[in-house]
């Protein structure tokens, strides 16, 4: 049993003590320095301006335009109250697409995390082979989402590569329409989304695994845990911060998803994979700008309503650490 358990906290605390000590010596001088250090405001301007022009103002305008009749058919824009909201909610498409979006987001969160966690566990040791494999699994993350979508679309079509491989293995013609089922295609597309982003989850889980204190592992081993208990009762709970981050980013990323689904199914078959963003895009293309703005406002609100409780719950989980 190692005996240096308080070495870590001690080394972290040391500099803090040092600062405190200096402050008591020359309080005035330090405060002046701090003031200088706290006022690099000029450096912030470029970032603030970009944020303002490209993020805050469009977001605010998004709220404003949702209550207007802005369209590609008029020269003027006038407020029209809640007419857009009424029209949207009276049509079943919005509700259907919201449901599709939530199902898709949940599936992506599951796939991306399961794939990522499995990869991280298998590739944890720093061998040369593992390093190479990590890079390979990270490649889809940096690929264009549209390219990923088109590749998978070609692989999965009824005379595509997957069916040909299956046909070779089984010795008969396989012509499953992987992207043709109104029930299961959303699962397939979500899996593609999970596949594309699993490399990122893998990296974060890897980082999480690396931070687990070896002593905890050794202590558990001394207490006689088997590998199954070791993973689920010791290591997995300690990955909580990584899980929070991965689930949150997967949820947010997939609720705002567009590109992968557009490239693989374009919302089909039968609208069963039509994410809200695809509907927004379709409506905007029709020249109904105010309506599509209203939809993105609805999406913004829905993402907020769903994402924040989930993140809050996951954060609360971390508190036991």
């Amino acid at each position, binding site marked *: 049993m190692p005996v240096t358990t308080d070495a870590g906290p001690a080394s972290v605390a040391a500099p803090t003590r040092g600062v405190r000590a200096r402050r008591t010596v020359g309080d005035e001088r330090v405060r002046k320095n701090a003031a200088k250090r706290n006022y690099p405001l000029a450096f912030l301007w470029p970032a603030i301006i970009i944020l303002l022009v490209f993020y805050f103002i469009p977001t605010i305008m998004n709220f404003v335009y949702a209550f207007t009749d802005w369209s590609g058919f008029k020269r003027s824009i006038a407020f029209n109250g809640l007419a857009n909201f009424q029209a949207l909610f009276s*049509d079943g498409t919005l509700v259907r697409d919201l449901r599709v979006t939530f199902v898709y987001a949940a599936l992506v969160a599951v796939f991306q995390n399961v794939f990522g966690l499995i990869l991280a566990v298998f590739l944890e040791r720093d061998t040369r082979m593992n390093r190479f494999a990590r890079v390979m699994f990270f490649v889809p993350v940096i690929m264009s989402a549209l390219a990923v979508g088109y590749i998978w679309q070609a692989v999965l079509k009824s005379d595509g590569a997957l069916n040909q491989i299956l046909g070779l293995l089984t010795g008969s013609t396989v012509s499953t329409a992987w992207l043709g089922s109104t029930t299961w295609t959303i699962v397939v597309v979500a899996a593609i989304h999970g596949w594309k982003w699993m490399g990122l989850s893998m990296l974060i889980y890897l980082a999480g695994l690396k931070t687990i204190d070896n002593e905890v592992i050794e202590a558990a081993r001394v207490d006689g845990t088997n590998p199954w208990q070791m993973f689920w009762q010791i290591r997995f709970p300690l990955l909580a911060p990584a899980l929070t981050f991965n689930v949150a980013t997967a949820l947010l990323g997939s609720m705002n998803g567009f590109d992968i689904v557009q490239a693989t199914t374009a919302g*089909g078959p039968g609208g069963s994979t039509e994410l809200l963003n695809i509907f927004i895009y379709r409506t*905007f293309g029709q020249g109904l700008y105010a309506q599509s703005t209203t939809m993105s406002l609805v999406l913004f609100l829905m993402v907020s309503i769903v994402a924040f409780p989930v993140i809050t719950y996951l954060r609360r989980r971390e508190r036991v650490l």
Partner: protein
Amino acid sequence: MKILRRAIAVVTAVAATSVALAGCSNPSAPDSGADTGAADYWPATDTNLDGVTLNLWVAQNSNKIPQKVVEGFEAKTGAKVQVTTIPDPYEQTVQTKITTGDTPDLAFWQPTASMLAGFVAQDRLQKLDDAPWLGDYVDGIADAGGVYQDSRYAVLYSNPPVQGVFYNKEVFEKAGITETPKGWDEFVDTAKKIKAANVPGVESPLYEMAGSQWGTQWAVQVQLAEAAKAGLWDRVNTGEEKFTDPTILGAIKNYQALFDEGLYNKDAGSAKDTDQAAALWEGKTGMIIQVNSLFNAIAALASNDKAALDQKIGFFPISADDNIGTVIPEQNNAIVAFKSDDAKREAASRQFIHYWLTDGYADFVADQGVLSVLTSVPSPDTVPQALIDSAAAIPDGVGSMQSLAVANPDLYINLADMVNGTKTPEEAADSTQQQFAQLARAQGISGF
């Protein structure tokens, strides 16, 4: 404190400018009533244009079309024509660009009421009336598209596609069919005959491609040709008649019935347009209801071999009771000219169109191997018979929903949903009607 105050000032200034930029009005060119009959409205094709640069927007599937015309025009006038390919989906991307203030001088554009309405309402298009070549157009072309609210805004430079039936002649022969059908009922009977004949290699008498969605609308639209001649779309445009009323809903139900009877391919819901082209070319199916662009995909499979195509693929128009063609001009048939604040460029744009439809036309037709729309210019002899038959249906044809309705709802998506079983015919009609009403309301049309 000083810094803070300055900071607040800057933030306010930036916010104010951005709000002003985002604006509360659609950016558009000033309104102007042009005299299209004036002697110099259509400049002579050889007017010197040194130093003038024109921007022409084209789509991915049409960016080779203007090549020869541009070369000839540049050589003749000294102008420069910059051809920019706008990525697909072309119409949406162009509309988005123009809405955000990026406007070309010329663009390929679908010359239909539904696609012109938005630009005309925003006063972005030049009027192209009183064109010098109008009398030279072959029968039917002048009326096939481009006119909206009694003014011409788009000029057709090639024959618009016709919705109709492309069929495999060999399959017809093997199934013992000697005459092409007249009217919808005979069309259905023909399909049943092919099915009953059990021709080896033929998997289904009809073939649909709802995986690519866009082709699903033709089977419904062709059934509306007679009604369209009798003013169906005028009534739909005023809200007097709806997609959910018996005429259109009936056509949708007839389409659904073909699936119920097992006349379509099993994977109709997910098959793509390319699959459809291959199926007809390879004789896996007997008939498809389609337009010229799908035929072009078949021609590509046949390496554009006219003899092989003529031997295998035929075309006939179909309608509820007759063989009336439903004409649907596309983006790669017509060109529009935009207003700008530069009168010289506006005139140069008109001059470019003038050149194309007169002095440059023979070169264009020869280069592209398409049928001529001018009586003074002969067509090349390389055009496949199916396309000649398609063009022959134009003079007696009638406009499609896109041509005659004020808005173009996503009928094809709703029908693709129906093919996949997630919508009933009633629901497909209802969704289409709701979207149509929404678009009509946005245009400020009364009755919605």
